[in-house]
């Protein structure tokens, strides 16, 4: 107590600031860092949730490395990322760029794009699952059938299933990205555009030389944010393929679904934890790379 009394006022303020800051810090350490550390520990062990944990060294990682399903799943996860991120960003930018110019029913149109983002992913996935069914229930295929076009196997196909699942995931995320892009567009000072107009710069050049460079912080944020989202995709895949999770033949299975399946159907917690650690490292590397590449110089 005497120690505290001897402090100056500003030092006391710092002590109090740290006291308040400690609450979220302690909270974070207990609900985030402790389980994370525990997961890393479990990844070196064999545990079925019921018995004792036994130390197995790097066996789980060796098994993972030699598991063809893991590599397939790894590839899928990156396909979700590599297709999902650019496609969603380009569509979102085009939509935002156009909405920004529209005055007629601006709020309504913006709301229409934002509603899917607020909808429960589970409900949406089930509705799309119904859309994709073959005749006689599926909406798309019934439509094709009335036009006498052969059916398309959307979900029951090793090639079409992944894009089919990705489409509603991209659509659902658009609303958020559009709002962020519009905020970014609004924050670009009008004076640059006025100067460009006076100098007679073409609209295309204005887009490339002014709009896009000045949107860079927005783009960096969205790329990182949506990449993490696509690397962690689960709801859409799981709900659209509940009978054959991640199927057919693992063609849509992302890493998170494999982790879930290993942990809560196989009860192989060690192996699941090893997959989690790999996912963690992938997320870390991808995020760091993106920040580095897109960083302002």
């Amino acid at each position: 107590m005497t120690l505290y009394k001897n402090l100056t006022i500003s030092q006391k303020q710092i002590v109090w600031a740290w006291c308040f800051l400690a609450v979220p810090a302690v909270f974070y350490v207990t609900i985030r860092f402790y389980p994370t550390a525990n997961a890393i520990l479990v990844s070196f062990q064999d545990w079925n949730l019921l018995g004792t944990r036994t130390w197995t060294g790097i066996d789980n990682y060796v098994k993972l490395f030699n598991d063809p399903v893991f590599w397939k799943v790894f590839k899928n996860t990156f396909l979700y990322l590599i297709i999902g991120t650019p496609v969603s960003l380009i569509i979102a930018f085009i939509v935002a760029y156009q909405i920004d110019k529209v005055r007629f029913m601006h709020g309504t149109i913006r709301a229409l794009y934002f509603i899917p983002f607020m909808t429960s992913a589970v409900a949406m996935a089930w509705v799309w699952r119904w859309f994709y069914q073959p005749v006689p229930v599926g909406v798309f295929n019934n439509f094709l059938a009335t036009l006498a076009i052969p059916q398309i196997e959307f979900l029951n196909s090793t090639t079409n299933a992944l894009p089919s699942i990705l489409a509603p995931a991209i659509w659902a995320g658009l609303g958020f990205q559009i709002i962020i892009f519009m905020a970014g567009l609004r924050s670009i000072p009008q004076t640059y555009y006025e100067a460009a107009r006076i100098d007679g710069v073409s609209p295309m050049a204005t887009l490339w030389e002014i709009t896009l460079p000045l949107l860079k912080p927005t783009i960096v944020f969205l790329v990182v944010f949506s990449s993490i989202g696509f690397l962690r995709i689960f709801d859409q895949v799981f709900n659209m393929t509940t009978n054959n999770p991640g199927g057919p033949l693992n063609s849509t299975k992302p890493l998170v679904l494999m982790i879930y399946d290993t942990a809560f159907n196989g009860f192989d917690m060690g192996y699941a934890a090893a997959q989690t650690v790999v996912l963690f490292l992938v997320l870390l590397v991808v995020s760091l790379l993106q920040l580095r590449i897109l960083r302002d110089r």
Partner: protein
Amino acid sequence: MKQIRNWILGAATAAITAGGSFSAQAVEIEYWQYFFEARVTAMDQLIENFEAANPDITVKMTHFPYADYRTKVAAAIPAGEGPDVVQLFYGWLNDYVQADLIQPLPADQFPVEKIEAEFFPMVQAMKRGDNYMALPTAVRSLALFYNKRLFKNAGIDGPPATLDELVETAKKIAQKDGAGNITTVGITTGMTGQDHHWFREGLIRQFGGDPYTDNYKSVNYNSDAGRAALKYYTDLEDVHEVTKVGFMDEAQAAFKAGRAGMHIDGSFRIGALNKVRGLQWGVAELPAAADGTKSNYSSYWVNAVTTKAQGEKYDAAVKFMAYVTSDEAMQIWLDTVGELPAKPSAALTETNAANETFGPFIKGLEYAHTTIFANESGQRQIMVDMISRTDLEDQSLADSLAAAAEAEQKLLDEYYQ
């Protein structure tokens, strides 16, 4: 102030004494199961009857969503908390025994010979050494559901009795639109439902095979019988064109919608089908092979005494186990949940066997086999993938079956290593 303090002290002492004397009379044991409404209602009734017969014992039931169930049980028992009697899926027994969560039923009250004489034979999977570890109240088996209206419209008298008749019946029911898209299936297929059980324990055995050896530790279906069974199954779609895997998303949905003539499913589907208005359905035994061989699959949930129950709680738990495995309890379970009694004495009563709905399931129990799964969803996935490979990647049946057998053996080896 002092008065109040004295009063509180006195009240507390009284409460402790009362509580103490109360517990000397009544033992409270805890029972855990996962939440499924009909099961909870049935168990409430069993507990009520049990407490009436044993006034010195009270049973407290706790239930959890299925998803949390295993985790909670695993965390509670080693900590000395949680259930004295616990419900578990038969396939989890190994894990529970190895983790020391449950203890054997006493041989003097549950003698092995008596259980083997009284219960259906598949319950023998619950024996470890000279004791039974757990016993079911109810069991489930498979049967063929059929749509009476579609049968009548197609001019078919009754459900098929043999596998060949099944194909002929299905052909009469299946319908296609002008473009050749199937719009009503003769029979639903898809390994994601109950068909993988039908294939493993039904078809393979009916074609003369034995799907597993070495107490389900070795895969044995990569054989002529396995290939014949797989050919029969895939021919339904590929040759006879009476079905399509994934038709209307889920087999049971197609049947409920009246778009499927036949559907193989478990007794637990009865309740859901009863709720479908306007659907006229019947149940028949699974079709026999040409030579008359019948085979079925059975699964069940069991109750067991946990290692937490000691002393008087152990005695009470054993008494409770005796009650929930009695004929009376089994009949209550059948009437409330629709699951079949685990003993022939309770199952094969005249009223039960003659029951139009339950009868075929109960008859199926007599020739049912219970697969001992290491990881049921993993092993089902292997069957699903086996069909997908022939469907989507044009792999030959023989190769796909061999690959499935290899994958399943690997899974079993890892589990039993």
